[in-house]
């Protein structure tokens, strides 16, 4: 882990763009030119969905990896943002949708989801860490049942359809290529923001709180305030993901933020690895690939296509058993083993 950038000891320090590793550029070029090789389905369904789920899982990773708080309410916050955009903006349910301009609808949606996330955080952080999972799961299911039964605001079981992104600059943002760039942009923005913040005082303090809350209090930090603030930031990420998710399928319903999807976000974050912001995106990509092609794989093995959940569950168990740090953990151990002195076994990075 790189430490805080300080003024160099008399040496001229390289400018920021010289310090970016080469493979970043390579990946960047591949990502930006993807529409050249990939078809509409891959762009929209595979990459688009991966970027969206990645952003929502990133919000969980931020809380869990940097803050030590595993929140199962991230999908709920995302769903709330999606609902708000449908309610304040345009949808096919004209009786409820307000039809306000996109900039108002989106801002309100994000504001409300951040507010909601902050309250969830405040409820969840004042107890011991292990309760967070329970409390957030209970809140997530409350939201699911409530939206399913409430017809006045949330239109109950059917939810909202016809929720489309605004036609900015004359572009239909649900067109596969445009959508790809839209989700890519937000995925990159979320990723780099989290990476940057992790080394800012706020991020460092959060990690300190994760490692030793008592010590942080004895250093002058208001531990509860930091944790709640972390939830607020994470809610912003989840909200953005939720709005994109709603636009992708052009609809939102109680099942979108149900208990299954809420747990799936945790599964994605854990499979990818909670140590680094790239983990959620790796996990999301694997999940999307599995979900898209698992049916065919299962059938070729002679099992019914509906046994997808079984596959996911078993895969998840395998990962938690053998590599609790997810794919990133496997990668780390692989790198360590390569750097290790074959004779003495020393080297690599002990962590």
């Amino acid at each position, binding site marked *: *882990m790189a*430490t*805080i*950038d*300080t*003024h160099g000891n008399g040496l001229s320090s390289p400018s920021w763009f010289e310090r970016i590793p080469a493979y970043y550029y390579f990946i960047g070029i591949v990502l930006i030119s993807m529409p050249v090789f990939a078809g509409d389905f891959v762009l929209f369904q595979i990459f688009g969905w991966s970027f969206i789920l990645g952003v929502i899982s990133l919000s969980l990773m931020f809380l869990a990896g940097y803050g030590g708080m595993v929140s199962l309410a991230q999908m709920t916050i995302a769903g709330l943002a999606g609902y708000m955009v449908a309610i304040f903006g345009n949808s096919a349910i004209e009786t409820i949708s307000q039809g306000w301009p996109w900039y108002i609808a989106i801002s309100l949606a994000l504001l409300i989801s951040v507010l909601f996330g902050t309250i969830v955080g405040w409820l969840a952080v004042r107890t011991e860490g292990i309760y967070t999972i329970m409390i957030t799961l209970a809140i997530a299911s409350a939201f699911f049942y409530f939206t399913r039964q409430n017809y006045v605001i949330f239109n109950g079981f059917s939810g909202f359809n016809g929720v489309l992104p605004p036609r900015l600059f004359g572009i239909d943002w649900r067109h596969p290529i445009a959508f790809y760039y839209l989700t890519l942009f937000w995925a990159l923005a979320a990723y780099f923001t989290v990476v*940057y*913040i992790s*080394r*800012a*005082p*706020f991020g*460092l*303090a959060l*990690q*300190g709180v994760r*490692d*030793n809350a*008592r*010590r*942080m*209090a*004895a*250093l*002058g*930090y*208001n*531990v509860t305030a*930091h944790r709640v*603030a972390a939830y607020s930031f994470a809610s912003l990420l989840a909200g953005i993901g939720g709005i994109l998710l709603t636009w992708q399928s052009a609809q939102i319903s109680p099942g979108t933020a149900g208990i299954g999807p809420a747990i799936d976000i945790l599964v994605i974050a854990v499979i990818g690895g909670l140590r680094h912001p790239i983990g959620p995106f790796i996990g999301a990509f694997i999940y999307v690939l599995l979900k898209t092609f698992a049916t065919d794989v299962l059938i070729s093995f002679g099992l019914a296509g509906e046994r997808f959940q079984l596959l996911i569950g078993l895969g998840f168990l395998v990962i938690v058993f053998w590599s609790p740090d997810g794919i990133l953990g496997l990668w780390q151990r692989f790198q360590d083993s390569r750097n290790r002195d074959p004779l003495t076994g020393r080297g690599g990075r*002990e*962590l």
Partner: protein
Amino acid sequence: MNAPLPNSSRMRGNGAGNALELRGVGKVFGALAALSDINMTVKPGERRAVLGSNGAGKTTLFNCITGDFYATTGTIRFFGEDISVFPAYERIRRGLRRTYQISLLFTALSVLDNVYLACNGVSRGRFSFRRPRRNDAVMDSAETLVRMVHLDDVRDTLVSDLSYGQQRQLEIAMALSGAPRFILFDEPAAGLSPTERRELVEILTNLPGHVGYIIIEHDMEVALRVAESVTMMHNGRIFKEGKPAEIEDDPEVQALYLGGEGHG
């Protein structure tokens, strides 16, 4: 030695009067009275040692003063202000600091990160989302502190890779962050080699005159060398108070702790 840069820690109280004043402080855990009827007055800049056998309540006393937990009875005043019900972070922001008997450090972060966190905790910008820029004041004071405790060459090493002695040095550095007015040192010499102990005594005696401290120690050599007054505790109560020489010669103290012939 220069004091660390004063940050915006709020200085309450007029500084005159007592740095620390405990009246009737007690702490009860279920049926166990860990502390009873503690009355203690420490002047600003005073250097005091708290001695006593294991279980005498010394660390519990510290925990009550810093707010790691709340005292069951009594009041605690810090520079004239009643901090008895303040949460820990409020007390720290008023200039109180402490080290722990078993180092509580952030093992996954580097030495500089740890000190930076300590300095940041008592300054503004705790919630800042921006990375520190080149001339950041907090970063400067962190670097100064790291140099002051001779950890400059390992400043980017992860704490988990440090030696025990280095970790204890880091604890001290963190206690000196910001503009401390009073520090509580909980057995800082435990497990240190003789050279390291000498360095510790040097650091303690060279602290600025206005910074008072209380040191808990088992090592009499260190304690009696750096303290100008001694409080002896036994079974959660204060047993005797006086100057180091008086305490050393006191027959009751000798019977209880020094085995009658100085410590071995």
